[in-house]
C-alpha cells in the first residue's frame, strides 16, 4: 500500500500550499474551495487505508463543534445591517437583531479550522509519519527518532491502559471520584517507565547516538552564533509582520534571513554526527508534478498576500461588505491542489493494471 505512495517531500509542499489559504484569509469563497480540494484528496487517499476512519471521525468531531458555534455567534453578536429576524430586546444576551453578517462570521470562522483539519488528515494518509521523521536532516535526527518513539508509544500505552482497567475492574474497582484514578494511573506509569527503560537499553545496545566527530571550539561558537542570530531574525521578522502591517516586506525579508541562518547553523551542527540513511526515495514524474503544483500554488498565494493583501481581506461586519470578493488567479491556485488526488488515482489504476491481484 505504501509502495505506491508519492514522495513525502512532494506532499509536504502540498501541505504548505494547502494550509496557506486557511491561515491567511477568512474569505468564505476561498475557504470553501480549499475545503473541497482537501476533501477530494482525503477521500482518494483514504480508499483502502485503515487509518482513514480515525481521521474522518476527527474531522467530523471538528465539524460538529463548528456547527454548534454558529448559532452561538448568531445569538450573541447583534452587529450588522442585514437583519434576518429579531428576538425580543428584553431577553438577556440573545435578545436583539439576528443578522446575516454574524451568520457569515460564524460560518467563516469554522471553515478555516475544518479546512486545516482536513488538510492535515489528508497529509497523514498520504505520508507515513515515521518515515518522514527519519528523513529529517542529520541535526534533527535525534529529535526525529525521539518523536517516532513517542508516536509508537501511544498505541502501546492505550493497550496497557486497557489491561490495567480490566485487571482492576475484576478486583471490584469502581470509578467514583478522582481518588479512584490511583489504581489505574500507578500501574500505567510503572509499566510505561519499565517499557521506556527497556527501549532505552535496547537502543543503547544497538549503538544509538552514532559516532560523533570532534569539533573545534571556534567552529562551535560560530555555529551557535549563527543559530542565535537566526532565531532573533525569525522572531523580529514575524513580529514585524504581525504588528507593523505597513512594513510587511521588511518583516518577510528578516524572517527569510533568520530561517536561512538557522538552516545553515543546523546543517553545520548536523555534520558532527556521522550517520547514514538507508532509504533513498526516487523522484518520479508524478512526484515532481506534485512538488511543482505545491510550490506554484504556494508562491501565487504568498505573492498575493505580500503585494495584494487586500485581495484576501474579508470581514462581514460593517463598514465592510459581507459579500466576499473573488479573484480567478487565487481560485486557480487553490483548485490546482486537487490534481495530486487525480495523480494518485491514476497511479493506482496503473499498478492495478499491472498486478491483477
Amino acid at each position, binding site marked *: 500500500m*505504501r*509502495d505506491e505512495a508519492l514522495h513525502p517531500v512532494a506532499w509536504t509542499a502540498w501541505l504548505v500550499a494547502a494550509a496557506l489559504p486557511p491561515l491567511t484569509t477568512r474569505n468564505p469563497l476561498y475557504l470553501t474551495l480549499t475545503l473541497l480540494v482537501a476533501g477530494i484528496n482525503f477521500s482518494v487517499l483514504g480508499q483502502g487505508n485503515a487509518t482513514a476512519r480515525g481521521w474522518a471521525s476527527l474531522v467530523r468531531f471538528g465539524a460538529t463543534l463548528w456547527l454548534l458555534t454558529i448559532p452561538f455567534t448568531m445569538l450573541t453578536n447583534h452587529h450588522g445591517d442585514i437583519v434576518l429576524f429579531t428576538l425580543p430586546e428584553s431577553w438577556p444576551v440573545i435578545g436583539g437583531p439576528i443578522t446575516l453578517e454574524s451568520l457569515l462570521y460564524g460560518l467563516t470562522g469554522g471553515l478555516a479550522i475544518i479546512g486545516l483539519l482536513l488538510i492535515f488528515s489528508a497529509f497523514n494518509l498520504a505520508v507515513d509519519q*515515521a*518515515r518522514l521523521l*527519519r528523513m529529517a536532516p542529520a541535526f534533527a535526527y535525534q529529535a526525529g*527518532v525521539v518523536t*517516532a*518513539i513517542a508516536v*509508537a508509544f501511544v*498505541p*502501546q500505552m492505550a493497550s*496497557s491502559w486497557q*489491561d*490495567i482497567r*480490566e*485487571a*482492576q*475492574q*475484576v*478486583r*471490584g*474497582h*469502581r470509578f467514583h471520584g478522582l481518588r479512584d484514578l*490511583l*489504581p489505574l494511573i*500507578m*500501574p500505567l506509569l*510503572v*509499566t510505561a517507565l*519499565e*517499557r521506556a527503560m*527497556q*527501549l*532505552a*537499553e*535496547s*537502543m*543503547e*545496545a*544497538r*549503538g*544509538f*547516538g*552514532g*559516532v560523533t566527530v570532534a569539533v573545534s571550539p571556534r567552529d562551535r561558537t560560530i555555529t551557535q552564533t549563527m543559530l542565535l542570530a537566526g532565531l532573533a531574525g525569525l522572531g523580529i521578522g514575524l513580529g514585524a509582520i504581525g504588528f507593523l502591517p505597513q512594513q510587511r516586506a521588511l518583516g518577510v525579508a528578516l524572517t527569510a534571513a533568520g530561517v536561512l541562518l538557522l538552516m545553515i547553523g543546523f546543517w553545520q551542527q548536523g555534520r558532527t554526527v*556521522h*550517520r*547514514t*540513511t*538507508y*532509504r*533513498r526515495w526516487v523522484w518520479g514524474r508524478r512526484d515532481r508534478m506534485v512538488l511543482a503544483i505545491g510550490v506554484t500554488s504556494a508562491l501565487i498565494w504568498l505573492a498575493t498576500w505580500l503585494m495584494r493583501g487586500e485581495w484576501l481581506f474579508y470581514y462581514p461586519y460593517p463598514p465592510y461588505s459581507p459579500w466576499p470578493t473573488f479573484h480567478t488567479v487565487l481560485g486557480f491556485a487553490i483548485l490546482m491542489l486537487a490534481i495530486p488526488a487525480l495523480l494518485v488515482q491514476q497511479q493506482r489504476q496503473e499498478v492495478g493494471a499491472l498486478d491483477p491481484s
Partner: protein
Amino acid sequence: MIRLERVTYAYPDQSPPTLAGFSATIEPGEFVLVVGPSGSGKSTFLRSLNGLVPHFYGGSWAGRAEVFGRDPLELAPRGMADLVGFVFQDPEAQFVVDTVEDELVFAMENFGITQGTMRKRLEEVLDQMAIAHLRSRRIGTLSGGEKQRVAIASVLALQPEVLVLDEPTSQLDPQAAEEVLVALRHLNEDLGLTIVLSEHRLERVLQYADRVLYIPGSGEQALLGDPRTIAAQLPWAPPLVELGKRMGWDPLPLTIKEGRVRVRELAGRRMGPALETGPIAETGPLSPPLIAARNVHYGYGSRPALQGVSLEVRPGEFVALMGRNGSGKSTLLRQMVGLLMPAEGQVTVAGRPTRDTPLGDIIRTVGYVPQDPAALLFNDTVAAELAFTRRGHGLPPAAEADARLLARLGLEDVADRDPRDLSVGQRQRVALASILVADPQVILLDEPTRGLDYEQKRALVALLTELTGEGRAVVMATHDVELVAAGADRVVLLAEGQVVVDGPAREVMSDSQVFASQINKLFRDPRYLVVDDVAVAVEP
C-alpha cells in the same frame, strides 16, 4: 574469546553483590547456555558482556572483562554494539521504529555504514533469519516468533562476533520458540557465531548447547562445563534429565533420541501396571458447571477471535487452555469473567448469563489473574493490595484472614514490602493472593509462568492443585507443556478461535506431537506423562 575475571558487581542501593568473584571463559564459536534460578545474576552476567552493566545500570564494579580483545567497561555499549549483538526478553519492548526493514537498518544507520553496504547486509540478514517475506510489514502485525527473529536479524546486521540473548523464547509459544532456536543453531553451526543464551525452560535448549554455565546465585560459585556434567548437578532439571538421574542412567540422556535408547533397554524389565487412568474427577459430571460457554462467537473489528466455542467448567477441575498465540485463549478467559460479552451465543456464570449480570456479581464467583502482575499491583504494601480487593468486593477488612492467606502462599515475610520490589515469582503470587482474597470459586490465569523458574513453577502447580482439591476450578491459559503435564487434569486446545480438542490431559497430551510432555514423547504411552508416573511403574 570472552573472559571475565573475578568480577564483583552490585546494583545501586543493593548491599549483597549480584555477581561476587565471578570468573568465566568462553571460547569463540561456542554455544553457551546460562541457567540459574530467577534473580541469580544471569541477566547481569549477560549485560556485562556489552557494558550495559555497569554503564546503563550504574552500581559498583570490580574485576576485569574482555570480549574478543575489547574492554566493555571502557567502550560502553555503544562501542560494543558491532561486536556483541544483544537480544532482549520482551519482543515488544526492543523495537525503535515501526517497519521491519527500517528496524533492521537502524543500527547500521547509527554506525554510519554506507548505503550500498547496508543494502547488501539487509538482504543477507533477511535470508539468514528467513524473514524476507516480512520485510515491508509493520512490526505490530508480526507474531511473537517473527518479532524475535526480526530482533535477532537487526543485531546481526552489524555482523557481530557474539550474540547474547536474554531468555529470548520465554514469551513465545512452543512452535515460535522452536523457530527461534533453530535459527540460532544455524547461526552457531554454519557461521561460527558465538552464542550466549539464558533460558528457564532447559528442555528446549539443553541439547543445542556446547557448554552450560550454571549461576546458582546467593554468593555460590558458578559452574561452567559440558551439559551432561552440569545437568547432573542442577537441583532442578527438565523431566528427561530428572528421569535419567532417578534411573541412574549414565551418560545422562539430553535428547529424546538418546532417552529412547534407554527406554528400549527398560522394555526388557517388567514395568508395573503404573497408574490406572481411573475416573478423572469424581465430582465432575454430577455438579452443575460453574462456567458454561455455549457457541460463543466474538471478534475484534472484522477479525474473528472466537468462532463457536463451547466449554463447561465444573468444581474441582484443573483446565489447561492451550494453543498458539492468537488462537483465542485470552479472549475466552475475558469472556468467562464478563469483561467481554459474546457477540453470539452465551456465557453463564453460576447459571446466570454474563450479559444480564453486573460485573460485581460475576467476580464473586470468578477471579481473574492477568498475564502481567504489574497491571494489577499498585499499593505500597502487599497487605494493602489484599485490603483493596476486599473493599472492591464490599467485604469487611479481615487482617487475620489475609495473613493466613499470605502464609499459605509463602508470602508472610513480605506482607509489608512494596510489591514492586519483589521477585517475579513473588509478584505473581501476590497477584494471585489479591484475587484469592475474595474467595472465588473459579480462578482464571492468563500465562502465569512467564519468567518463572522450575522451582517457582512447581510451587505454583502445587498451590493450584491444592485449590482444586478444595472444590475450586482453575482455568489456566499457558504454553508450558510440562506444567500442564504436572498439574492439569483436562486440556482444551484452541486453534483459530475454535476448540480443536477437549479431553483428559493424559489423552490429549499423549496423542499430540507438539503438546506432548518430554516423558510422554519418550514412552509414547498415555500412562506416562511425568517422571513420577514412570518411577511408580518401575519400582516393584
